[in-house]
């Protein structure tokens, strides 16, 4: 993917800043960003505009409050959120209730759990599948007094396997009750992975889910 004309620039830059590009397009965009001074000008203006608005914002919006935290209250919020989530953060419940009869998309439902920590869990994928869809249930925090994060970051990182690719995706809508992340299965190397979901606060990151997976390819 190469960013070319103004309109493409505009849309691609925004998609990048909102974490909406595919992993391959995001990597291609970032490589171009490292090399292209004109693109750097455009991205800088967009980032600074967003930052400017966060520095000067006094206008309420119609969307439900997200508990945005700033300044000296930041660490208090981060601490409260951290400790409140900590009870959930150690393990995942995995509902692999999806149909696996040659379906092109396999959805794995994940949720923070208070259960005891578990060992690495196994996820099976096959050549017939096109997409591994990770659905992460975040509704557990609803109704609590915890501040909402600004966004969520989801990461799938290979453990000690130089051949396997790592994945990272930012989800800006932190008010969502669940987030879904589709990964093309042809890109995934069978290996053991570390999976983590973090809430992003201004100046702090809070781990919400932290779990190892072993991904196994079925013939």
């Amino acid at each position, binding site marked *: 993917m190469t960013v070319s004309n103004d*309109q493409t620039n*505009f849309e691609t830059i*925004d998609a*990048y800043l*909102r974490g909406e590009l595919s992993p391959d397009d995001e*990597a291609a965009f*970032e*490589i171009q*960003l*490292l*090399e*292209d*001074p004109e*693109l*750097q*000008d*455009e*991205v*800088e*203006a967009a*980032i*600074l*505009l*967003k*930052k*400017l*608005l*966060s*520095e*000067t*914002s006094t*206008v309420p*919006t*119609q*969307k439900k409050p*997200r508990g945005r935290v700033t300044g*000296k209250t930041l*660490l*208090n919020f*981060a*601490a409260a959120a*951290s*400790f409140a989530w900590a009870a959930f953060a150690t393990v995942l419940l995995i509902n692999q209730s999806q149909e696996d009869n040659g379906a092109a998309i396999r959805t794995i439902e994940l949720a923070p759990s208070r259960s005891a920590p578990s060992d690495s869990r196994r996820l099976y994928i096959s050549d017939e599948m096109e997409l591994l869809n990770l659905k992460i249930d975040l509704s557990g925090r609803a109704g609590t007094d915890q501040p909402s994060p600004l*966004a969520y*970051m989801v*990461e799938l*990182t290979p453990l000690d396997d130089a051949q396997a690719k*790592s994945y*990272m995706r*930012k989800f*800006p*809508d932190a008010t969502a009750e669940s987030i879904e992340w589709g990964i093309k299965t042809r890109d995934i190397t069978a290996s053991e992975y570390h999976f*983590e979901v*973090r809430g992003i606060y*201004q*100046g*702090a*990151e*809070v*781990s919400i889910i932290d779990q190892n997976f072993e991904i196994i390819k079925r013939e």
Partner: protein
Amino acid sequence: MKKAVNHSTVDLVSAIRNGDSSAEAALVKQFQPGLKLMLAAKIADYDAVPDLVQETLSAVIFAIRDDKIREPKRLAGYIQQTALNQIKSFYRKSARISTNQEDLLSSQTADQTTPVTQIQRAQTRKTLYQLLNQLKIERDRELLLRYYLKDEDKETLCKDLSLSAEHFDRVLHRARKRMKALLEEHPEIRELLMPEER
């Protein structure tokens, strides 16, 4: 603005391998601006960006010195991957720090800004408010806030505010142009919003 002549990455890698320290400086100068933006886009804590830039470029230079870059033409790709690794490391450290109560409590008591810095920041914020005030139409301001701060999507905003997609693009385009012009007139604003390397 600021743009330097780009060197061939093959030449840069070759010169660094041969111990040319000026080539190391040229590499930093060439890739620092884009790397800084990439990191700023990916992490919420802007104050951490300068350190991550330095750590990434140091790791790249050490890799070149140790002859670990096999395809110098793809140096940008190597820098991008190194930056992602630095981000992962940063997140892990942040998670550890944010769950350590003692660290949090001691951090809360340390206000590192001086009165002079606070006054400079107040003046800069005043300039920023002036920029926002240039948006005469309340609807345009609301659009920017909801789009950039609340991450609401374009389709929803256009529907809510009875805007065409073209009008939406025009408002954002005008805002970015003003931002760029303002940055050229007031470099201190860039410093406030995205601190330079210390």
